[in-house]
């Protein structure tokens, strides 16, 4: 059943979120806010070496410290066979996950967990890890992706042989796999081109930098039953990964979702929970572990950095006839960078007849990468959208016009294979073309950049329940941690279907024992897939309410209509009964058959693709190399905005992360492979004074697969900004920055290269 935009009463409005008051008064409970009676404090000992063999671990001195109750190492975790599965936000090998949570045999990055301690206070735990003696045999390390690919580079895993290469290599290397996508004949296409642009772009790993560090409080009982309280993007993921890593069965673990202080993909896997459970098993007491900010930077997954080689061939009239993309993406210490999506997203916005894409997944001595908003897409799109801009300049053409000429539309075959249906990319170009922003004039050292982007969005498995309470209010139960206001949207969709005021619907994010399986929060899936489950649950409740009204009136259920939260006789032939409100029916539910409730499970497919076009104005201070963002407009196809304020918020947040990725954020390593900037002072994310207001313009091309037309919105916004900023800088001062971040020292160096400094004597 599809809901028509014109007649919606709740969806599309901007009510206050149901969990809002507790968040503004400081009462909402996040990961570190929980206490359990008798709990001990845990702390993780981390490797100071980028690459080393662990020769021995001696915890005797630590165990003798008064107040220390237990120490765990890899010996306390079961050996797991190498097992490939797609269980989280990307290809996942459980053996690798286990080794990442607690190093076994080797440490592979500065910050890799080696042991953990449980003690009576945080101070004692801190002192205790200083007393654990680890003997390391330091090995040569490699950090940079191209260095890791070179023959002779230190090899991290002696059982890693490049997949996707024939014949299979005889020697292990750091290249985990090579993938290709082909459309038409790129070589022939380039011969046909009148203008060819070939460039190399690079970016550095960046951290998701959620303000809340990882935290959990767990309790393992002697009967094997466990409770895990943690902030994560998915309590079912936490349950599954803990079960796998500790050899427990899933029903024995109750994973409770705390409020989560930001995730963006970085909390779609576990780091602390299995370690805390192992400590809890050993001590027989609850364990609380909270990461410090330094641990977050050293020990948890950033987004991949990499190299993007782009070649575009076009006719003088602007038609792109051939394109080539080579992506080399960092996976960190274990294989599994998002090289697939990186390859597929770079040219998704365009209709190009001949395309060749090659991607490499490369390991090196850095933390294992984790997902970060549209994983892989911002990386390759930085390259492709910068190159499209360079092509536009070579053709002396307006960059927006070049995109209009080559835009993908319904019926276009994408470079990665599928033929597009129901997409709104051209709509975003049209809105950008008509925008007031584009019409404004710029001053000296100011420039404007345009860039587009795409993300698939996903659907997947969700469960939801709708319970009618005896007083006619409704409780909606779902299983997705709320990272951006989604529970408000769930209540709004249910209220729309039930026809009752939004304030009479209360949403609850439940634990793994209290709602059916739900895939984690990520991939821009919750409003789409969980919203679908919630809508269907509410619809099933309405069917039941009509049946109950029919029973009360003693007529056929087919003769009952439901409108505005009431049952009406369908027509004069049905009988002349006064409408029955939901509250009235609820009061009689016992007599008419029992509680009125419905639970639905879905595996939502056909998530709507998301496209965006961004316009960015900058001013460059040539003396300092500082780039100021003057104005930013982000136009995005959102399908239907259930709660427009939260949709705008997703867009503004993603844009800001992209701006940080473009201008300042990067990991700085010393020559020993140790992280120099493991804190917010030197890992510089955007602050309020860096930015103007951000114009989020919502375009709605409904997705027919969702009852309200929803498309995922959260990830697309981070895809265009890096190229938008780089293109704006090029427009401002004529210098093309191809290596991110475009931090002041690098911009200054580039400016100096262009204009040698004047001598003092002049």
């Amino acid at each position, binding site marked *: 059943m599809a809901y028509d935009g014109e007649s919606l009463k709740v969806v599309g409005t901007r009510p206050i979120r149901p969990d809002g008051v507790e968040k503004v008064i400081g009462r909402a409970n996040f990961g570190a806010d929980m206490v359990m009676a008798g709990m001990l404090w845990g702390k993780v000992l981390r490797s100071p070496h980028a690459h080393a063999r662990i020769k021995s671990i001696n915890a005797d001195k630590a165990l003798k410290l008064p107040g220390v109750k237990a120490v765990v190492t890899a010996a306390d975790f079961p050996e797991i066979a190498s097992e*490939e*599965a*797609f269980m*989280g*936000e*990307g*290809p996942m090998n459980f053996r690798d996950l286990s080794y990442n949570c607690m190093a076994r045999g080797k440490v592979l990055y500065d910050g890799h967990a080696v042991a953990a301690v449980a003690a009576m206070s945080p101070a004692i735990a801190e002192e205790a890890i200083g007393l654990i003696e680890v003997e390391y045999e330091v090995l040569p390390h490699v950090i940079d992706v191209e260095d890791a690919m070179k023959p002779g580079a230190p090899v991290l895993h002696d059982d890693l042989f490049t*997949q*996707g290469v*024939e014949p299979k290599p005889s020697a292990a290397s750091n290249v985990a*796999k090579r*993938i*290709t*996508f*082909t459309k038409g004949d790129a070589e022939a296409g380039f011969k046909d081109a009148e203008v060819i642009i070939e460039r190399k772009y690079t970016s550095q790993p960046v951290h*998701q930098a959620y303000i809340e560090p990882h935290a959990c409080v767990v309790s393992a009982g002697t009967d094997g039953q466990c409770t895990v309280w943690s902030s994560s993007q998915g309590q079912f993921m936490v349950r599954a990964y803990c079960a796998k890593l500790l050899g427990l069965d899933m029903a024995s673990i109750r994973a409770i979702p705390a409020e989560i202080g930001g995730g*963006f*993909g*970085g909390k*779609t896997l576990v780091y602390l929970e299995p370690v805390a459970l192992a400590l809890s098993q050993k001590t027989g007491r609850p364990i609380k572990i909270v990461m410090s900010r330094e641990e977050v930077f050293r020990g948890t997954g950033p*987004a991949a950095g990499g190299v993007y080689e782009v070649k575009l061939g076009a006719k003088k009239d602007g038609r792109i006839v051939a394109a080539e993309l080579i992506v080399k993406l960092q996976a960190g210490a274990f294989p599994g960078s*998002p090289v*697939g*999506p990186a390859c*597929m997203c770079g040219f998704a916005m365009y209709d190009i007849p001949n395309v060749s894409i090659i991607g490499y997944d490369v390991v090196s001595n850095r933390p294992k990468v984790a*997902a*970060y*908003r*549209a*994983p892989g897409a911002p990386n390759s799109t930085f390259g492709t959208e910068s190159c499209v801009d360079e092509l536009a300049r070579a053709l002396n053409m307006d960059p927006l016009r070049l995109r209009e000429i080559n835009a993908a539309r319904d019926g276009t075959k994408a470079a*990665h*294979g*599928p*033929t*597009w*249906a*129901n997409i709104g990319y051209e709509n975003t170009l049209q809105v950008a073309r008509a925008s007031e922003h584009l019409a404004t004039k710029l001053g000296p050292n100011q420039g404007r950049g345009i860039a587009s982007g795409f*993300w*698939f*969005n*996903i*659907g*997947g498995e969700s469960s939801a329940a709708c319970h009618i309470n005896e007083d006619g209010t409704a409780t909606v139960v779902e299983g997705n941690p709320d990272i951006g206001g989604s529970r408000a949207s769930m209540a709004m969709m249910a209220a729309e279907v039930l026809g009752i005021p939004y304030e009479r619907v209360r949403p609850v994010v439940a634990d793994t024992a209290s709602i059916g399986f739900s895939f984690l929060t*990520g*991939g*821009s*899936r919750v409003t789409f897939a969980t919203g679908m489950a919630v809508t269907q649950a509410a619809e099933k409740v309405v069917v039941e309410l009509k049946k109950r009204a029919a029973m009360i009136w003693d007529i056929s259920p087919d003769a009952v209509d439901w409108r505005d939260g009431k049952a009406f006789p369908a027509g004069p032939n049905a009988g002349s009964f006064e409408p029955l409100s939901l509250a009235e029916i609820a009061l009689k539910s016992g007599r008419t058959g029992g509680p009125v409730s419905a639970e639905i499970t879905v*595996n939502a*497919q*056909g*998530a709507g693709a998301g496209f965006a076009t961004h316009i960015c104005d900058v001013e460059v201070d040539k003396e300092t190399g500082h780039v100021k963002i003057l104005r930013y407009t982000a136009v995005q196809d959102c399908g239907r905005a259930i709660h427009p304020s939260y949709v705008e918020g997703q867009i503004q947040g993603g844009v800001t992360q992209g701006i940080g990725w473009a201008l300042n954020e990067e990991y700085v390593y010393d020559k020993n492979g140790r992280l120099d900037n493991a804190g917010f002072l030197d890992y510089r994310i955007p602050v309020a004074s860096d930015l103007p207001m951000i114009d989020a313009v919502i375009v709605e091309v409904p997705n027919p*697969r969702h009852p309200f037309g929803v498309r*995922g919105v959260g*990830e697309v916004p981070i895809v265009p900004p890096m190229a938008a900023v780089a293109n704006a800088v090029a427009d401002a001062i004529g210098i093309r920055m191809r290596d991110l971040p475009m931090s002041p020292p690098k911009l200054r160096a580039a400016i100096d290269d262009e204009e040698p400094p004047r001598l003092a004597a002049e």
Partner: protein
Amino acid sequence: MSARRFTGGQTEFEVEANTVRRMIAELDRRFPGLGHQIDEGMAVAIDGEIFQDAYQAQLNPDSEIVLIPKIGGG
């Protein structure tokens, strides 16, 4: 992609099947091992819409089927 190693490099096929499950079974019959590869790591785009898992998804005559790597998100 890595699936090529099962098919000896062939990348386009014609298959008789009316659901995704039957299509996977047929491809696995022709290229042993490919079925598991598709099940674990690939999504199926049917006429442009992406299905990450849906054995029962219907295939129409002349449906365009594209196998792509499974997609996650952040």
